[in-house]
């Protein structure tokens, strides 16, 4: 524990700027993955343990599209759309078979998909790690704001995540389809009785959830290493985010992801040996004080 360093940091403008930006970038990428996870849970009550795999495959797809086209935007879109398709296939052929079944069955199917996909990645791309590399447009020196270091690429990532999150929130809140999805989360039988094709709806939810994870993988690919199994660590943190934010709450996921990002960012200065522990403590406190999470009462 280094409280002097922490106090020194929060009283220094440069440190606050640097660490806040750092926390936001960690949080926003986490939010994109967790948003898909919480959306799927909110509507289908499925805890998608394979969600980290969506992130991994999205990153690999983005890497491949980028390698072929040289376009980072196409790479990110490729990762997102590819995972939307994969989400539909995953839902239709696997998860839909265990709707309403014991959660253990869902867990087994998800875990099987994780292992299969990890091996497939090794077969297709090999066991080596990959790095997409920074797109030429972003190979620029960092900005210095109030003495703090702010990389322009991270500002782009934060903006992109905010736009995607905003579009998701608006889509769910204001569009007809969004309202149907929210209704299905509350009472799927009633939605079905109204003649709405819930099968299609559920596939759509998985497509959106997969797309969010794929976009996150693609967005992060220039600065993260691509390895088989890379989705696991992201999955763990995404679960913490969904638990803190409230299972099924997009707004909760956003707040929780940013809070976790800031905890990591400032925690590493004040509690360098206990940064991960701080995240779990935050989760435990929330579970004790408000077991449904910060925004747990909201359905979506």
């Amino acid at each position, binding site marked *: 524990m280094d409280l002097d*360093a922490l106090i020194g*940091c929060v009283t220094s403008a440069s*440190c606050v700027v*640097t*660490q806040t*930006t*750092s*926390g936001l*970038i*960690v949080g926003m*990428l986490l939010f994109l993955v967790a948003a898909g996870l919480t959306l799927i849970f909110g509507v289908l009550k499925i805890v998608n343990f394979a969600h980290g795999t969506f992130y991994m495959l999205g990153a690999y797809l983005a890497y491949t599209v980028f390698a072929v086209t040289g376009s980072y935007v196409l790479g990110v879109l490729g990762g997102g759309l590819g995972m939307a398709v994969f989400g539909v296939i995953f839902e239709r052929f696997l998860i839909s078979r265990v709707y309403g079944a014991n959660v253990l069955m869902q867990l087994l199917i998800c875990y099987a998909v994780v292992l299969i996909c*990890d*091996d497939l990645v*090794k077969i297709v791309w*090999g*066991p*080596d*790690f*990959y*790095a*997409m*590399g*920074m797109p030429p447009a972003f*190979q620029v*020196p*960092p900005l210095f704001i109030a003495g703090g*270091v702010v*990389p322009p*690429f*991270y500002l782009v990532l934060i903006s992109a995540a905010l736009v995607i999150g905003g579009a998701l929130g608006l889509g769910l809140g204001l569009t007809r389809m969004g309202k149907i999805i929210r209704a299905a989360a509350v009472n799927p039988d009633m939605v079905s009785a109204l003649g709405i094709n819930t099968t299609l709806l559920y596939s759509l939810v998985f497509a959106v959830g997969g797309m969010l994870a794929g976009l996150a993988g693609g967005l*992060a690919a*220039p*600065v*993260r*290493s*691509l*390895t*088989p*199994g*890379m989705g*696991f*660590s*992201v999955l763990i943190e995404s679960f913490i985010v969904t638990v803190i934010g409230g299972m099924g709450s997009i707004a909760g996921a956003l707040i929780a992801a940013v809070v976790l990002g800031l905890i*990591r*960012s400032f*925690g*590493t*200065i004040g509690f*360098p*040996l206990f*940064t*991960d522990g701080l995240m779990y403590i935050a989760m435990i406190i929330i579970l004790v004080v408000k077991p449904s999470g910060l925004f747990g009462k909201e359905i979506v």
Partner: protein
Amino acid sequence: MPEPSARMGRRTVLAASAATLAAPWVARAQSNPIKIGIQSIFSGPIALLGVSSRGAIQPEVDRINAAGGLLGRQIQPIYRDSKGKPQEAARVARELVNTDGCEILLDAEASSGAFAVQEVVRDLGVLCVHSNSETSSLTADPKLRVATAFRCARQGVHDAIVGGAHSAKVADAKKLVKWATCSPDYAFGRDTTAQFLDFLKHFRPDTQVTTQAWPKLGQPDFTEVITKIIQAKPQALYSALYAGDLSAFINQGNVYALFGAMETFIPAMGDLPVLTTVKSLPPGIQSANRYLPTFPDTKENRAWYEAYRKANNNDYPTNWSWENATAVRFIEAAVKKAGSTDGKKASAALAGLTIDSPFSNSGKVTMRAEDHTLIDYAIGWGTTIPKPPFVTGIEPADWGQITELETEWKKKSGYL
């Protein structure tokens, strides 16, 4: 009295009969291959360890078999995946010997698995060569040492001594006093960093450590670690990160222009998978060699590099590759010398053995008898450039200095 020609004929007949009777035994002996159990990590995030180890082992085995085998018997490697779990490593090692009938173990595990295998070998008494574990205590600590187990890999303390000496030299020239470290948060990262700092302070007693960051192994995002280092404003940074974690750290550090702000020392940078994967390799990083086709800059090393790539779909060899190729060559030489695969006899032959090697500046490597560990391999530090050969100006280490300081370290650690 029978004619001489008839006697000869009878002897010939007797010899032929004996040969006929013995034929099945001879054939069985020749068809009874020497099974070598090879366990490593072939799945998960660090599958590259096992894959690039196997990529070096198999061509060596093929070479021996093509030349008629070992003691007239073909070698049959049996590969097993421990998935990086120590308890699985121990189970697999036992199974390879007891169930699969392996006479020799080539343990290509990471350190956590190697310590588990060591105890199995203590029990079974077979010849075992650890080919990937760099944790010094495996062979340095007499309480852990096993009579039939050897380490054919670089050793953490060797890297720390050479790294400390080189870094101190650079620190002298550039007047570097304030240091930061960033290493993976497990035994290897912490031990290696502590040893490096010990030797750096041995050469530069005025060294100050301003901050230390310990990211988790496989951590996807190093942003908070990087910004923490920036806040500490060190003059120099040491990192024991490696492989995919190192690649991510470099890419994320580039975003913050981290490596232009301080002198950086990363021993594991000089490994081809990292050098070729990092798209924007910062110039001027001080790096040790892990495996480089240009160090030692000999035609033997270059030829091995080309052969490896040809045999492995043009993949690059890793540090683990040369270690495992060397392990097979030591096993070959020891079994030939002993005339047996028996654990005790082969171990007696292997202890103190010196063989020719493309991975040494002297052209030879030795399995040191006193602690069963590899010495005289190529080790040195140079500076990165963003294009091949990626690391230049590599200064070979002085093995006399390494041995002297290693002995002091052993005394200090209570190993001598």
